[in-house]
């Protein structure tokens, strides 16, 4: 019984990170209809910036907001200087229509190369903000540690902040209107170019948070978030790609499933299983487990 609960807790912690990455991908997809492969690159660059702050100040809690803001800024710049220009020409031919997606793939490679040039390819350690030794109850120590609790709590806070912004503020209304129907939003006076960029900035921030949360439990290298990108995509597709709630739930479903596979079957199966889940969802319910009109508005 306790093994099941422990596995579930670890799954929720891992799933939280997937949810954040998935949220980043969904925010970009909703605002510009671009599948953003560069998200892993943007997140890794933000995380390295956080790493620089940690190594110089020895303070994780300073690195966190710095990485978050860098992520937002990088996201906004990618939209303004790359995606917006490509999207304007989207009707000028068959290549132009998919050009933004191809460009994000190119950008992923470019950012990784730049990060490699600046910081090299060595695996680096990120200072732990809180311990990764599991909580102890009496004489038993469980795998779930304060770092996992930090991940889950931070993710919940981030999700709550996003849901308040989207559901309760004028900015959120403008963001949703632009996502659902850019033309009608513009005719109502919404500056859609701006809301798109804000969507990219929010996504960049969410990806950066995923990066600085997951890296202390792992190591940092120019490619260390690539697998997270894959998990983020799987989670986003499970969630239906359109809704923030779907992104969150998709991440949890994936995280918990992977935790159980790792614990009860084999640790080498984790990524094959992620892809099997992805293909099963696409084949059986292409709109995503949580997709469809009802959650789209959320």
């Amino acid at each position: 019984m306790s093994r099941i609960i422990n596995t579930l807790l670890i799954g929720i912690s891992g799933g939280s990170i997937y949810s954040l990455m998935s949220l980043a991908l969904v925010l970009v997809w909703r605002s510009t209809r671009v599948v953003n492969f560069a998200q892993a690159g943007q997140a890794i660059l933000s995380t390295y910036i956080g790493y620089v702050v940690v190594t110089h100040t020895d303070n994780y809690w300073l690195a966190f907001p710095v990485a978050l803001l860098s992520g937002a800024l990088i996201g906004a710049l990618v939209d303004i200087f790359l995606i917006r220009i490509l999207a304007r020409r989207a009707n000028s031919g068959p290549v132009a229509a998919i050009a933004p997606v191809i460009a994000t793939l190119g950008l992923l490679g470019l950012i990784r190369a730049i990060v490699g040039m600046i910081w090299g390819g060595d695996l680096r350690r990120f200072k732990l903000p809180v311990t990764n030794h599991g909580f102890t109850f009496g004489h038993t120590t469980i795998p779930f540690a304060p770092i996992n609790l930090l991940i889950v709590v931070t993710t919940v806070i981030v999700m709550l902040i996003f849901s308040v912004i989207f559901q309760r503020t004028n900015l959120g209304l403008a963001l949703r209107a632009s996502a659902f129907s850019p033309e009608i939003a513009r005719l109502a006076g919404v500056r859609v170019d701006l809301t798109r960029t804000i969507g990219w900035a929010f996504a960049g921030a969410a990806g950066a948070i995923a990066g600085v949360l997951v890296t202390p439990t792992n190591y940092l290298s120019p490619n260390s978030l690539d697998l997270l990108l894959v998990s983020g995509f799987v989670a986003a597709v499970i969630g239906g790609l359109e809704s923030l709630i779907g992104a969150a739930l998709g991440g949890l479903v994936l995280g918990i499933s992977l935790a159980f596979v790792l614990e009860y079957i084999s640790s080498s199966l984790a990524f094959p299983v992620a892809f099997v889940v992805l293909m099963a969802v696409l084949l059986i319910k292409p709109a995503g487990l949580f997709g469809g009109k009802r959650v789209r508005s959320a």
Partner: protein
Amino acid sequence: MSGLVVNDLHVFHGAIRAVDGLSFSVETGQLAAIIGANGAGKTTLLRALTGLKSVQSGSATWNGESMLRQKPENLVRQGIVHVSDGKSVIPELSVKENLALGGLWRRDKKDVAIVTKEVLDLFPRLGERMSQSADTLSGGERQMLAIGRSLISRPSLLLLDEPSLGLAPLVIEQIFQAIKSLQARLNLTVVLVEQNAMGALRIADIGVIVNLGRLVTVGPSQELINNPALRAAYLGY
């Protein structure tokens, strides 16, 4: 020159000259009905006037200022509001949110509240459905919502694309009467694009008849209604 002045406007729709040298003008406070068959270039005309479609050549001014090559969201800030064809509402948003959208950019929140109340007085059925999502509305209610939202932007020039599309005759009559009374009450200049020629001309001050992107004739709507040749050729009976 005050009012809307369109001069020798050319707009392509793909390879087709959808608007092919169109000129007409609408004085401030007038309601103009743009009439013509499907494919006459009416919708393209409105989209070109409000920055949704790029213009080849020609000019269009509102109170002397060029309105071409501007973004629709900037035109809204100058009082030029376009209600696009179909029911121009966002189905995933609630009625309340659709209305709020028209006033998001406005600084004068007091006036937004005032005009929202006026809209709800004009279309009480919207008030009963404020928290419902817009896709639960009937076609007529969606049109009321689209027009209501446009009013919250406090337009001086309102461009309406086929508000009668897909509505029952009784509902069309209601919508047309609402447009007519708004024009008079708010001193709105209205450009009403319609396939329902007779209905539109009955409430209009002037009619602009277009065919294949070109002007056929422009004149007081009563004269157009009474002209037997036009009736036979363009007004459907």
